[in-house]
């Protein structure tokens, strides 16, 4: 007798085993696909463009990746001054509303689902919340993934914040630089032309504007000039500089050309309160030259270098200040009167010349400047150009520490 039943039973067992293996294969494939999806989501998380997004956009993108990474249907980032929710978009409006309600109410009770909460490292009161529809709870692996996302949210948010601060700082710096450059527009671009005088003038701004100023005006055949330096650098110095230039122009028109000290007093009256509130001062050398009278009159309010060499003289004289800079109410401005016969030279610079250092830290100094005054046959142009070139050469590629301004006046034969 042939036994048939065991064959059928074996076949059934084999079929059952086959089905089980197929199920396992499908589960393995599903797990593999899920792992691949998560890897792709982790990759996407790392590629969020922090530099081009606002802080909230960075968080939203991270929360969206967290949906994929953790199989969640809604995620929420909650911290002081920040509360952002992202909900999966493939649901109907009714379910989206349910998910929003569930994550807003900090409970998934209204929903058939589960909820997970992890702290955001390094962020006080920072939480990452996720909810998932259905009965499948968050696994240990899901929770570890949520913790990873929470850490990423914290870091990406900080990066976005720092990037924003950096952009803000760069914007302010650019605007300050632009404003400082615009302020320079008040300065003359060329030396004035007046019979009986050879005039060299140059003003070179440092990378961070130093507040140097230079003003010329010819009033009734007399040359008025002023060279000054606002203490400090950047936009505050540039702003004070423009006000000082305006005050000087008015003073040139309203003051007696035989007494430049009067112009300094007028500028001080105009600016003292302003300078007091700005906590700055302005060094000023203000003078007049009347080529017909062959006379130089000058008032030094704390300015240097200011050097004079008379006609037929080989030595130069430093014209000392008679009062401190404008903005320091101490002492009285006084006018010094000097012969300005043909061949006489006056040099007025700013401290950016003397204080330029070389790569070893040695300053150019005042003695080197005075050396350019002692050559008898040098005209104003030659003295000016040579001195500026020498300061450049001394710097040997070092950046200009301050603005460099130089005016050289030389009396020449007066021809009407």
């Amino acid at each position, binding site marked *: 007798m042939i036994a048939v039943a065991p064959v059928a039973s074996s076949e059934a067992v084999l079929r059952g085993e086959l089905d089980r293996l197929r199920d396992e294969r499908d589960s393995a494939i599903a797990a593999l696909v899920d792992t691949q999806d998560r890897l792709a989501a982790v990759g996407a998380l790392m590629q969020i463009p922090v530099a081009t997004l606002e802080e909230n956009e960075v968080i939203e993108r991270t929360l969206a990746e967290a949906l994929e990474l953790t199989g969640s249907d809604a995620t929420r980032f909650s911290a002081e001054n920040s509360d952002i929710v992202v909900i999966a978009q493939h649901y109907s409006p009714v379910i989206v509303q349910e998910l929003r309600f569930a994550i807003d109410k900090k409970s998934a009770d209204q929903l058939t689902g589960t909820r997970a909460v992890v702290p955001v490292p390094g962020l006080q009161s920072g939480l990452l919340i996720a909810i998932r529809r259905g009965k499948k709870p968050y696994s240990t692996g899901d929770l570890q993934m949520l913790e990873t996302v929470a850490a990423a949210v914290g870091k990406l948010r900080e990066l976005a914040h720092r990037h924003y601060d950096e952009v803000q700082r760069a914007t302010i710096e650019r605007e300050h630089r632009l404003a400082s450059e615009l302020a320079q527009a008040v300065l003359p671009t060329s030396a004035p032309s007046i019979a009986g005088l050879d005039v060299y003038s140059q003003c070179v701004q440092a990378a961070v504007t130093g507040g140097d100023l230079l003003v010329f005006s010819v009033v009734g055949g007399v040359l008025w000039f002023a060279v000054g330096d606002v203490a*400090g650098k950047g936009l505050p110095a540039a702003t004070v500089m423009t006000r000082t230039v305006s005050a000087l122009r008015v003073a040139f028109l309203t003051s007696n050309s035989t007494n430049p000290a009067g112009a300094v007093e007028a500028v001080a009256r105009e600016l003292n309160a302003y300078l*007091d509130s700005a906590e700055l001062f302005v060094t000023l050398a203000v003078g007049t030259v009347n080529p017909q009278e062959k006379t130089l009159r000058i008032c030094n*309010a*704390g300015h240097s270098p200011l050097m004079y060499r008379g006609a037929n003289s080989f030595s130069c004289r430093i014209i*000392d200040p008679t009062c401190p*800079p404008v*903005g*320091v109410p101490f*002492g009285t401005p006084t006018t010094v009167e000097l012969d300005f016969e043909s061949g006489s030279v006056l040099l007025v610079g700013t401290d950016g010349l003397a204080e330029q250092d070389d790569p070893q830290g040695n300053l150019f100094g*005042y003695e080197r400047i005075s050396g350019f005054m002692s050559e008898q046959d040098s005209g104003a142009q030659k003295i000016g150009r040579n001195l500026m070139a020498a300061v450049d050469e001394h710097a040997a590629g070092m950046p200009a520490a301050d603005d460099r301004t130089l005016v050289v006046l030389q009396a020449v034969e007066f021809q009407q």
Partner: protein
Amino acid sequence: MKIEVTHNDKKVLIGLEGRFDAHEVQDFRSTLDPLLESGSWISADLSEVVFIDSSALAELVRARKRARAAEGEFIVSALSDSARVIFELTGLTAALTTARTDFGQ
């Protein structure tokens, strides 16, 4: 720049050493402002200052103004040679080294 603060009875001595320029102004201000607000008699010793620029001079003028606003005083009591040259060139020697005659009376 090295800044050393020494309290001596009701007076405060500020010793400065090194370069005093625009980069050092903020540190100097942070050290000095609490003392200025208290109306102290403050004396700054610049004998070890190797370089001083106009930003630093403006800071000294500011300190003097603030000290007097708080009914205190701020003076520069000693100068290195390089600092002395700059003080003379800017006409600030008398303005910053002369104390109020009525202080403490």
